[in-house]
């Protein structure tokens, strides 16, 4: 028995790597650190809606919508990447995330909210409205679509005053609770 064991031990080579002095390879499509592509994000918050540990949060401030990711809470499931309608979320190969400062683990996107003609803030970002318009243009009947698009440039209180319900909200993707 023991002879066999020694022979095998000599034959089977050492497999330990010299990490961190040597890079650790990760396979293709590894689920690592989440990255936001700011130029694509429209600030809809679909990622925050599906995020199981609430690592992504949408914070509404006056005139700004903030999308905030705290990687310390992230579980790297990739639901945000899967549900982003704009493909603005990407998971990278990066897994070396340790840091002594909390801010290093925070990703913050700020979306300034546009104003309507009376100077009130709208509750949707510019890109959200553009996206919604694009979707609506292919819809029928035309008059209704035009009316909806027109109303999307008015703030909530103005719209309610005119008696037209929210449109962009209904089109907001990924919101299970909004169903």
């Amino acid at each position: 028995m023991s002879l066999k064991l020694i022979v095998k031990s000599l034959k089977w080579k050492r497999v330990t790597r010299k990490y961190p002095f040597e890079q650790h390879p990760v396979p293709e499509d590894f689920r690592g650190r989440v990255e936001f592509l700011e130029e694509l994000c429209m600030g809809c918050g679909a990622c925050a809606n599906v995020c199981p540990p609430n690592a992504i949060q949408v914070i509404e401030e006056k005139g700004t919508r903030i999308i905030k990711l705290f990687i310390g809470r992230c579980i790297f499931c990739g639901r945000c990447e899967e549900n982003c309608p704009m493909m603005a979320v990407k998971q990278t190969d990066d897994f070396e995330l340790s840091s002594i400062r909390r801010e290093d683990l925070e990703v913050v996107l700020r979306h300034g909210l546009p104003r309507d003609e009376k100077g009130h803030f709208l509750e949707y970002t510019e890109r959200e409205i553009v996206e919604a318009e694009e979707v609506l243009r292919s819809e029928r009947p035309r008059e209704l679509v035009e009316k909806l698009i027109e109303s999307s440039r008015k703030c909530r209180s103005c719209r309610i005053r005119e008696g037209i319900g929210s449109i962009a909200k209904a089109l907001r993707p990924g919101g299970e609770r909004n169903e």
Partner: protein
Amino acid sequence: MGLADGNSCKAEEFVARVEEEFGESVEKIEKLGEGKVIVYVSRESLPKVVSYVFWELGGRLATVVGSDERRLHSHFVVYYPLAMDFIDDGYSGKCWIIVASVIPGDDPRFPSVTKDIPAANWAEREIRDLLGLEPVGHPDPRRLVLPDDWPDGVYPLREEMDYTYSPPSKERPYTFQPSERIVKGTEVIELPIGPIHPASDEPGQFRVYVDGEEVVDFDYRLFHIHRGIEKLGVSRMTYNQVPFLAERICGICGYSHSCCYCQAVEEAFKVDVPERAEYIRSVMLEIERVHSHMLIVGLGLHLAAFDWGFMQLFKARERIMDLAEILTGNRKTYGMNVVGGVRRDFIKDRIGKAMDIVRDVRKRYREIVDIILSNRSVINRFSSIGILESNVARSLGVLGPTARASGLRIDVRKDHPYAAYRNLPLEVKVRDEGDVLSRHLVRLEEVFNSLDMIEHALDRLPGGPILAEKVEPIPHVRSFSSIEAPRGENFHFIVTGMHSMLIRWKVRAPTYNNWSAMPHMCRGYTLADIPLILTSIDPCYSCTERVMVVNVKKRTRRMMRWDELIHKSRKLPIRGCRS
């Protein structure tokens, strides 16, 4: 999931027999799915009906589920799910009978069945702790789940408690109770182990009562890291976020938890899972089983001072972890399951890579196993210690390899097939000895079978989508599912609610049932055997352990470090104390 019609017929036959026996007590019958029936009986007749189904009809009590359904019908409900596994006619018609009873909100009591069926012991205590339903006549009045300083009258799983609420602590002691086996006046030494336990995946505190070297009794206090996952899952998360929480219940068999949860919800929502997704789930479940079994057998060998086997098994296991990483993008938390199917497809060149790894691991693993099994010191150390007789295993509801090593032919994959197991070359490995060796041998053999099944499934992976097109939540439906995880059966019970949320989510992991067999396995063996016996039921492991020896009579204490105890377990192959 085209289950044979035979299952529901068989279930009806059992229900008819229950009705015949307890005609007046049966209040309502509710069909859940194929081969799953809930029989509502009156509160008083609960113990009679449950023990009839358990002992006379050949049921296996999976767990006891308490549920606060006052939002639906202003009552609590206790469910006793019994899998009809111990019937003799082969594998056909194994179904589920759930004996349930409605408990009024203003009189939260129900008669305990623990006296007749020891398997209900922990689950009934848990219901008392978390829901405040009193099991009248339960032999053990102590707390199980809640911390000792938790105030009375605060029940976490009741609807009115907010999940963020943390009540002020109230001091109260916990007493360890040896069973009446200990003869007063004998020189019995009480040996505390813990509170951070070596061989469980949660910290636990143990008392080992020893007479010289011989263990006379064993008592425990677990649940130090009860995390309130069930409450979190129903309070804050939507049904499609819960799989990711379920995956984090266990650090080893997380995938089977998320899979089990998804199956329960899919059944409640009547979702048809695509065949390809079922195959992918089976592959991932088997990958998990392989790495889990390699880990625990490796640890067993480590405790028996055969570190070569430990190292080599971990080396082989690392290849399996790589395989999981290639297929899912992560070593451990696969994040594959959502309700309705899986999220990531197996693409072709990855299947090729996976096949190479499986073949490679099988070859290497066979060589390792040959050497392990030809090592007589290991075999002698493992054999005839920690014997669990099959009748004890049956009455305690022991699961998985622990049960199969004691001669119980139960395996959810075969008895209640799910995912793609109907089409895979599954063999149920059973041994009769019931000792530590046979538990490890069952695992060693299962790994070969699992590797075969992975290869078979990857080879014959059907085409098509991996996610059901439409998942339509249906509110207020009861459903449950069970899965053969590496350590035994996982059991998830759900009641769906409004707005994509759940009202109740009950999780029972296999170690929950297997722990209760520990006193039986330890009695009569030596202190040095305890680490080996503990490991053989496959709890997890943490190394920051110390043991304190207390001589009750002389009031002397001696600290014994965990490594000292392990050293003892390696040095002292004394056996035969059990007379």
